[in-house]
């Protein structure tokens, strides 16, 4: 059993044992790689939860997510861009859902990229809401797949960081910041 001697989040631990224990504690583990990302958003908790909870809206700020289909109150189908112009797909089940507080999921059997995790929303006083994403996943083709994903900037840790920033932009400003000059340029950058 891993013991931790400080108050830092386990996602930042240098110890594999501590990270493993944290993944076990999450339950519904779908993989062996743990990432965590936190962002503070200057909007009320309920509003952020409500936007995220409608999974069909996630592609508005998740660049890699092509679309999410709702199959049932607890199951959704995800179509996601992968390195090399490929698409990967999976079904995800809601494993926990607390209004205004938490959304947790785990991919169903047969997922192209097995993954699980949770999004937590906590009050941050006059600074708004602290949103923490904790994700456990199984990188495609192990270490090599992870390297390739990183080369194409489709590595989940990088994506999670950028997606959370875009979520913040959308919630705080009503739009996702774009530096392109023309629509043609924008299309080129998204591709």
């Amino acid at each position, binding site marked *: 059993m891993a013991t931790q001697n400080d108050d830092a989040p386990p996602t930042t631990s240098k110890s594999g044992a501590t990270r493993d224990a944290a993944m076990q504690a999450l339950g519904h583990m779908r993989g062996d790689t743990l990432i965590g990302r936190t962002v503070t958003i200057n909007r009320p908790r309920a509003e952020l939860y409500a936007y995220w909870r409608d999974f069909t809206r996630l592609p508005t700020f998740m660049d890699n997510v092509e679309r999410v289909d709702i199959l049932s109150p607890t199951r959704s189908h995800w179509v996601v861009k992968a390195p090399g112009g490929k698409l990967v797909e999976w079904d995800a089940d809601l494993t926990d859902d607390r209004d205004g507080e938490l959304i947790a999921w785990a991919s169903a059997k047969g997922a192209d990229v097995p993954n699980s995790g949770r999004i937590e929303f906590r009050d941050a006083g006059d600074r708004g809401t602290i949103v923490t994403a904790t994700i456990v996943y199984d990188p495609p083709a192990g270490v090599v797949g992870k390297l390739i994903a990183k080369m194409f900037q489709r590595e989940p840790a990088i994506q999670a960081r*950028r997606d959370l920033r875009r979520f913040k932009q959308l919630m705080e400003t009503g739009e996702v*910041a774009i*530096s392109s000059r023309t629509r043609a340029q924008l299309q080129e950058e998204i591709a």
Partner: protein
Amino acid sequence: MRALTWHGKHDVRVDTVDDPEILNPRDAIIKITSTAICGSDLHLYDGYIPTMKAGDILGHEFMGEVVETGPGSTLVKGQRVVVPFTIACGSCYHCGKHQYSACDNGNPADNQDIGMELYGQPMSGLFGYSHLTGGYAGGQAEYVRVPFSDVGPIVVPDGLDDDEVLFLSDILPTGWQAAENADIEPGDTVAVWGCGPVGLFAVQSAFLMGAARVIAIDHFPRRLELARKFGAETINFEESKTYEALMEMTGGIGPDAVIDAVGLEAHGFFVDNVVDQIKASTFLGTDRIHSIRQAIVACRKGGRVSMPAVYGGIVDKFPLGAFMEKGLTLKTGQTSVQHYMPGLLSAIVEGKIDTTFLISHRMSLEDAPKGYKMFHDNQNEVTKVVLKPGFTDTAVAAE
């Protein structure tokens, strides 16, 4: 449209490129009427700023006429506006505190990674200033796309010329913030390194904030003369020993506050500067910092250091001991332009601040490459180049 584009060190060209379009609800398209070349554009020109790409449109000091608006913009077609060089959303925590230059959302998410790696937190977005600050096209062009146009641009009252208000976009607020960051107390003596536009506006601002004396330091006679016109005493560092002169001129105390308005390309023939230059040219370091070193050493005990100057990288031989032992305070940062614009516009209208004295050259946008070269090669005579698309009388000096 025609636009000034960057292609490499000392290689800028006027190219024909696609017109900008409205891409987000809060966007506006501005037809440029005046745009200036900034001293910090020379850092790009000299190749000191990383993450530039061939074809990038430069320019972050500009103003013009609103020609198109998105549904979320509060601007109206036909309005004349000056646009702040910092891109701020107006709704994040930092914007709420008027720290507009620290805006969380002005820089696209993907571009924020570089700032995280270099500085620990992402930079805000700026116009025409590398991909580190967003990769936004700048205003040295016929048209520019302005995001968050309901927050940044300030509408110019009728009866004011472009030349009177153009510098609200950057250098006037930057000089003002530099003086504010020096926490000037009535009766203070303030020393300003660098009599470029920011230094000269800092001189004017320091007096308005109650400084009894301002000592301006440079080596260009023309620039020192301008500082003297605003009431500053001057030190030409090629003729006098700066530290010794400052000590003698302040009764052996040192200036109460010091302002470094020079930055990463500090000139001067000093051993540490030559070493910095060699390191910069061999990529062992990017910043040449003689001015800030000298300012810290000259500053009186318990004094204040203000650093509007642009630095991008890592320095060594920073006089941390002098800084600590004398108990100095340092304030710095990109300018929160949006915070200062309304007050400074009033100061211009009331005639408290003079801005037009600075312009030495007005040129057509087509002549922009010539403008860059002139500004780069002759900083004594060329204090400010203003480009006007459609200006026909090419390369005529103001006087």
